[in-house]
């Protein structure tokens, strides 16, 4: 756990979500892991903020107005295929998962969030990234 927080604290997270209440509650939780979090309200804003800042990791909702999470991930992975992207969504429909799989996404978290799943996912990403180095 400490390893993970040591790892995440160094990162700049982009968090994309359209629902205010969810942003509110999720930020409380994410604050425990990340010191630098940039919030975007939809996929388009997500892409813009990704270009503006040096982002290390992305957590995003799928279903959003203007541009959904999948389209955003597609564009961002096009620029940086190695950036870890996690979807955090109530969606568990086959079609979404198939589309997401095609994008080589690091993982999904279903709402409501399970702490150990999130940890496991971060651990996986951490190992993957340290392998690359």
């Amino acid at each position: 756990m400490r390893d993970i927080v040591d790892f995440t604290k160094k990162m700049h997270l982009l968090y994309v979500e359209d629902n205010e209440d969810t942003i509110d509650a999720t930020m409380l939780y994410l604050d425990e892991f990340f010191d630098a979090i940039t919030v975007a309200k939809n996929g388009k804003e997500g892409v813009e903020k990704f270009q503006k800042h040096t982002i290390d990791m992305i957590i995003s909702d799928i279903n959003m107005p203007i541009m959904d999470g999948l389209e955003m991930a597609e564009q961002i992975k096009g620029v940086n295929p190695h950036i870890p992207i996690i979807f955090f969504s109530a969606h568990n429909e086959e079609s979404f998962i198939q589309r997401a799989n095609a994008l080589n996404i690091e993982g999904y978290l279903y709402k409501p969030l399970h702490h150990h799943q999130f940890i496991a996912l971060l651990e996986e990403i951490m190992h993957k990234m340290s392998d690359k180095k």
Partner: protein
Amino acid sequence: MKVLMLIVLSSLVVNAQHLDKVSLQLKWKYQFQFAGFIMAKEKGIYKKYGLDVELRELEESMDVVSEVLDKKSTYGVVQPSVLLDIAQGKELILLKSIYQLSPICLIAIDQGIHTIEDFTNKKIMTGGRQLDASLVSMMLSHKVDIQTMTLQKPSFTLSDLIEGKTDLVVAYTSNEPFELKKRAINHKIFSPKDYGFSFYGDMLMTSKEHSEQNPLEVQRFIDASMEGWKYAFNYINESVDIIFNHYNTQNKTKAALLYEAVELKKLAYLKKIPLGDINVQKLHRIYDVYNLLGLVKNHKVNFNDYLFKSHKIKKTPLLSPYEQAYLEQKGSIKVCYDKSFAPLTYTEKGKAKGMVVSILDLIEQKIGLKFSYVEANNWVEQYQKLQEGLCDIVAVTSKNPNHYDFLTPSTSYQSNSFVLITDTDEPYQEDLKQLKNKTIAIKYGFHTLHKYLETLYPNIKFIQLKENGFEKVARGEIYGYASISYHVSKKIAQEYRGELKIMGKLINHKIEGSFGVNKNDDTLLAILNQAIETISIEEKEKIFKDWYDIEIDREIDYTIILHIIIGFIIIFIIIIIAYIKQKRLKSKIENMNHSLQEKVAQEVAKNRAKEMMLLKQSRLAQMGEMIAMIAHQWRQPLNNLSLITQTITLKYHKDSLDEHSMELFDKKSSKYIQQMSQTIDDFRNFFKTEYRDEWFSINDAIKESFELIEASYQAQYIRAILKCENRYYLKGNSSQFGQALLNILNNARDALIINNVEKKMIQIELRDIDGYVVLAISDNALGIKKSIKDRVFDPYFSTKLDKNGTGLGLYMTKAIIEDHFHGEIHIVDIPHGTKFELIFKIGQDGCRKDIV
């Protein structure tokens, strides 16, 4: 005593069963090497699998492969060189490899032989065995030139080696070393497996022809043999005793057999490889070695084609070998069915169809049972045919009650209510026990049910009908007809819509449908019961739902044609009589007019009763909808709450949980809990059951209904536009009105999702035109197909039955709007969508307008 009983019973079972005679050609004399087969025979395992196996020792100048190909033996034990036979085009199928590694080796006692390189110029004795490819490869890989070696005539004793007549003998690690150890002779063993040549040991095979013709028998032989092998390796001492006492053609000592057993067990169980496994890659690797040695002419062989494919019976280990043997012997199971019991069983184009036939099809797929069908003209005939031995089971019989002493009902595959139908005009009866002096018909042949119903309802006269009971009720000849609800609701929906209705359940518990199995056939009963167990609830539901949705072609009923012809003759006679007696004709016409008026009045009454029944049915469907809507509303706050609790836990573990953050968490969680609790209240108010007529605002009703489904709209990004000019009021039950709106809104949402519309939109517009209040709900879900437009308000009509459509939503909406609020409902085609218009006249029937 019990034990004795068991023995007697089991021997009876065994005696009663049919055994297939097969033979197994071994590749050597009896010894522990074949213990699995010996034990399978001695312990009655082959018998259990319906097999009578003859074991055959190898005789001089006998070739196992030819024995099997010439059909002298059914099965054979061979060595991996069988791959060469296969490569030469011999049609063999490999079943199992008893040993993952071969025990074959070379043994030297000469002090001068330390490594394989020392073999050069040495004498080698092949004994009774061949200098097999693995040995050759082992030597070649160490650059031993075999040409320099002297191959000596075979001898069957070790003395040649001991006496120094030869330098090396071909041996088995499981046999010869024991002798040498016993005599305390120092020796060195060279095993190919230690030098990277891991060849299979004994392999079990049969001819391709035999395995194609008798796949089930082959599967049983494999299963039984492997069970025998497991036994042999688990009970080595017992196995050695049996071989020593009954199969000791080589006069081996017990100690030698025991040594053999221990050595061979190591070769049979290698790492985590399952006993008997054949790996096709390994076969190809062995074949590659043959190739390198130049033993192969035909280079391309896919050994996958020569491996036995497990028969699907293996996937259902639930059937005992005896049951499998029973089925194999039986061929197909004959099923008698009533040709006129749609949708459970019926005949269409000469074929058996229906829900139960689908269940049998599923069993066919799962267990590999085969069914053939024997049609019966009616319910009773199916039982007669069963008694006459024309079939093994009847497709449908009631399990509770059953009083047919010649059959045993299987586990039930479906339960269904036994319901009463009457003419829609009949007043609704809360308690059917109150019915007196009525005649209710049931299907002819439901004898036991008949008696049972009579004890339940002593005041009702029950009769059994061979003819169409629905028709008799529709014509008013009898009060009611009773049958299982699947049958009834199908019939009503397709043929008697608006004419007949379901009055209620006649029997409180559900009637369980099952197969009726011939009393004497306990094995079949056990098999069917196990088969039914394998069908999941979901699978059953799918079958019953699918069938419910299928239009059944009605058989041409020649009695109807006969009736029509008779009818015409009667009319013809009447006309002649009428022509003669004109005066009487006049009065007759007056009478007819009178009855026509009556009919109209009846029609009006019919609608009310029908609606009562459907209201009841739709309540359940609404509950389902409600739960789905609550689930939607709760998803976000529930997620937020879970995030907060997890953050608290995190902070606690980090010791950073201070008062400030606790306050923050408390405030936020209260907010989310409040949201969730509000949802519950909204729904409770909305679905309150008490009925009260009062003035309510249409605007508020729209708002309340919309709030309930708002979350599910948002989740799908459906844009909703509300346009209300003024405030309008209706008198009646606001909750019912709200339900009517919900049905339309849900319907529109589902249509938008199913059609996957790009920019989903719903518009609700409330205004008045020329003294009418018009509530228009329009969507852009591409519109309703012309072919079904006329039917969307019909009860039980749904395009979403596979999801959770009940086919009652829009029907209920129409009933509520027209009957309770004296309004009208129309569907209007608009570009890219549909518009529902609800119209109420201002000023009368409880509709008013306030100018804001």
